[in-house]
């Protein structure tokens, strides 16, 4: 069998984007944002995954992720989040991929290793539902990329992504549920879920 080698960060980023696309589909299915009927079963890294059948949805996800690739490759994108909003557009859950690409040296590394590691993520996503409370009905979702630095150059290059409201960093406190982490010589990646925690308890005025 031919050994596919990942020569540089471009390759890693490409593989990651492919993986991310699958993950998004999978998450949409697992978190039951859409009815199960719109998904079909596919296989990725030898793991059964759900894949949306709706062409527009597929296109949306694909273009969003592939437009991210440059940024990921440059290491500009720090976190990529799938943000679930309830009917009132209030974020109820954020699934966050935090990644850190590493510089590859020499002849590169075999792709299987990375694929093997990523497979762990897919498997974990499949069972993540048990660790999380169900989403409210009528959810919508959006993709958010958190950048380390956003140069004008990058911003102009891709019209698909628009800068988000900088105040978006919701001031709420939240609870982190970890799903999966990996460390490797290609990239470090962590997948975790942020859910808004309990509101700080109000206290009756205690002015001395």
């Amino acid at each position, binding site marked *: 069998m031919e050994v596919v080698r990942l020569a540089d960060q471009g390759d890693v980023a490409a593989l990651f984007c492919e993986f991310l696309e699958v993950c998004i589909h999978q998450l949409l299915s697992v978190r039951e944002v859409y009815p199960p009927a719109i998904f079909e079963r596919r296989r990725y890294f030898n793991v059964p995954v759900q894949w949306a059948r709706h062409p527009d949805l597929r296109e949306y996800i694909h273009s969003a992720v592939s437009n991210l690739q440059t940024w990921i490759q440059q290491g500009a994108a720090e976190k990529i989040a799938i943000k679930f909003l309830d009917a009132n557009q209030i974020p109820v859950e954020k699934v966050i991929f935090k990644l850190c690409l590493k510089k590859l040296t020499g002849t590169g590394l075999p792709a299987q290793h990375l694929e093997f590691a990523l497979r762990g993520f897919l498997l974990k996503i499949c069972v993540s539902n048990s660790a999380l409370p169900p989403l409210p009905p009528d959810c919508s979702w959006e993709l958010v990329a958190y950048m380390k630095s956003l140069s004008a150059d990058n911003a102009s290059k891709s019209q698909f992504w628009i800068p988000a409201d900088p105040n978006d960093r*919701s001031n709420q406190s939240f609870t982190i549920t970890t799903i999966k982490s990996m460390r490797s010589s290609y990239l*470090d990646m962590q997948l975790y879920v942020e859910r808004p*925690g309990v509101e700080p308890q109000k206290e009756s005025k205690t002015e*001395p």
Partner: protein
Amino acid sequence: MEFQFGWTVSLYLLIRSLSRGLPIVKPEWIVDSIAAGRVLSWAPYQLQRIALEHPNQRTLQSAYLNPKLDHCPLPLDWRDNYPTYSNMMDIDLEPRSELLALENVPTSDNQGPSSVQDGAVNFTLLEEDLKGIEVKADECSETENQGVLESHGKKDSVAIVDRSKRNTGAGYSDAAAAATHSTLGDDNFVQNYFKSSRLHFIGTWRNRYQSRYGSFNDNSEGQDQQVFRAKSGSDPAVIHIDMDCFFVAVVVRDRPELHDKPVAVCHSDSVRGSGEISSANYPARAFGVRAGMFVRDAKAKCPDLEIVPYNFEAYEQVADKVYNILHHHCGRVQAVSCDEAFLDVTDQGDPCQIASVIRSQIFEATRCTASAGVSKNKLLARLATRKAKPNGLYYIAPSEVEGFMDELAVEDLPGVGWTLKEKLKSHNLHKCSDLLRVSKDFLQREFGVKTGDMLWSYARGIDTREVQQAQIRKSIGAEVNWGVRFLVPEDAHRFLVTLSTEVATRLQTAAVKGRTITLKVKRRKEGSGEPSKFMGCGVCDNFSRSETVGYATDSQEILLRVAKQLFNSFAFDVRDVRGVGLQVTRLEAVGSGQSLKGGQGQQRALKSWLAPEISKVMLDESAPADRNSGNQTIIHRSTEPLKTEAGESIPVKSPALDVPKLPLNTSAQDNNDLHAVFTAAESGMRNFIAPDTKDRIQVGRSSTKAAPPPTNLPPLSELDPSVLASLPPEILAEIREVYGELAAQPVVSSKPAKNYLSPVAVMKGAHKTKTSEVSNRVDRREDGIRRVLPLEPLTERGESSRPPSVRPEIVALPPASQLDPSVMSALPLSLRRELEQEYKRQQVKKPDKSTLRVSEPEKLCVERCSSTSLEDLWTGTPPKWVHMFKESQDAEFSNLCVLAEHMAGAVRPFSVVMLSVLPHLSNACSATVSQKVIQSCMELIKQYVQQMIACDLEEVCMIMRVLKRVAAKSQLWRVVEDLITPFVQGIVGECYGGHLKI
């Protein structure tokens, strides 16, 4: 600097910058002080007093002073010996040496210069000089506070030097920029803030009061209360003493130019007038100036109002003096605040007499006036004070109560605020006499049970609250609600650093540690603008969150960690934060491990109980007797308290040994290697029978066949069947055996079964008993894993190697192997320490060769281990700590060796390794553990988390979960988990901004 020449020949020295706060005294002070051989109170000698002196105060003054001194006029020839100085400045340096010599060589030095000219020349000492006096005076007052308060004269020989507020008081910076007066840009903001905060003063004053009078109270309370109770037939009498506008009076007394002028105290005197007045004197009150008013409003009412700054040092000194006087007159003093107190003077004579003496003494000592109310309870005394003010005394005789209360408006009752007043008015209840008309039921229905009850009884002048002595502090904290402005999160974090340092300092000063840390945050109310009060907090929402840490702490590091974590958890925009408070509750006294609930008295009781000398004497005495009576020592022990929460002492009663039972060394500290001893035996579990029988169980453990039967077992009927039912079958069998045996043949004896009843007395050097053999065997059988019980075999060997003729050494402690770890862990920390130390001491004292041989290398190892630094535990492959733990032969670490071994060759993450050895860990570490092991484990996890946090959150989460599982079974890891959790949450908060769900 200016000189002013006064009337006749007398010369006044008024140095503007010096005279404020410094007492100007007559030269007789020095002369008399020399004559008396100590630093006398300068108060009677003070110049201003001449004008103030009242004819009737002179008598008090003489009563107040040492009578000897009073009847001893100055020798006239002294004056002739003294040179007369026409130039005041010459005096500057010389009095200093004089004063410093005062204490040591009181009468020898007659060369001391003073300026005497018909006794009317006064002098002022420069600040340097007075510092010297101050030091002396402090020492003086210190020693007095420790004990002797019987002499009037002695009590007040405190020279007050007030030099404090010159810097702060000299001039307010009107152009107070936000940058210098807020948390922005001022690194010492917190310290400075608390320096000029009145609330802070009041808060910390209580602390100071408690440390000064806490012991005093305790000492006197016993007898005093007895007296009180014994004679409680007579009418109760309560005095309420309240200083007249304390905060102003103290400042004004040293500034005669302000007398009779409207004066108010405020922390700032800015042009904007946005400071709040905290206290105003009576002339100012006549203009309508009230506390809590903004300065600008007050100035509008009274344009001549003089604003003076606080002088906290003077307040402290005055308050101390006042309380010295109060405590001198009465053993039952309830300090309400620094300027207000209740005294219970029941059975001490005429309360009015006492009150007036107190009042005049307070004035003598502090030149501040106090008002007093006297009546039969706290409520009436307080109301009387209100009537007495200013500077008066009011007595409500029992017969007058009714008339007095009838006239009173409802809002004058303590506890009736504006809201309640309005409510009462709506029911047409305006006066207390109106309240008498309505039934208690009605009041309780309308205003709630408590309030209704209060109104009902207050209206009748009934108050059942007793005068309480210093109360135990429940919380210590610091809160800043003024000048808090942050721009970026780093500002807030910097602020938390200083705040936590402040709180830690306060904890340390009060010698307590706390477990629950609460962070209060004031956030600007949405939509409200900049507050009207300069740098104030304005309209705010209050939020608070708390976190309980594993065990009581006073460490700034932990406070900061938790505070940061809590602060981050609010996730506020820091620009909206207007106030931050950090508070520590669930306090324990340092070193005792005891909750403060029991108070200091209990601690003392425990101490005396543990007093090592007495116990040893007792034991030595009892030794021969024991030998004669068939080598038996019996200890009777109430095991009941053992199962109460830590914080209780364990009463031990014994007919043979009367006072303390356990010869514990209270002073020794080092206890590292002994912990292994407590890696103890399941057999200890058998101790558990005893606790639930609730009765004093007497336990006999004999070492010879000839011993009398264990008659000390509780009667069968007293055993709790439910406890019996829940016992393991083997133990149950043993119990049955014993009781069966007892019933059958009461004169036969030593069965192993007795072990389970907390044996506390052991004969060392006697033949090895059947009992211990059995128990040891049981240990091994019951243990899933062979434990390391180094002491047990050693002791056995040591004992058997001794010839039986050697005089046995009796120690009222069970062998280490008999200790129940769970009981040990339930003991208060200090007690546990002492027990451990005692074991250690015994081991050292009794140099069995075999013991030494083995324990030496152990000790070395411990030392090596502790000397190895705990840094970089995770460097290298395998990580450094693996070697460290493995090489350590120390039993404590040997438990962790399993972990180390598994880690050694592992490529798996630490959490997995830990999980795989989970059963070993939880089993092995069930006993008491030392600080060092905890520290090691802490560092181990801490550093691992630090290493992992950025790249592997999942692993962090995993390790915490594993830790949680281990903690459920093991004391050591429970402590580690408690300590590490806030840290981990903090670090997650820092890196990810959230709270990790574990």
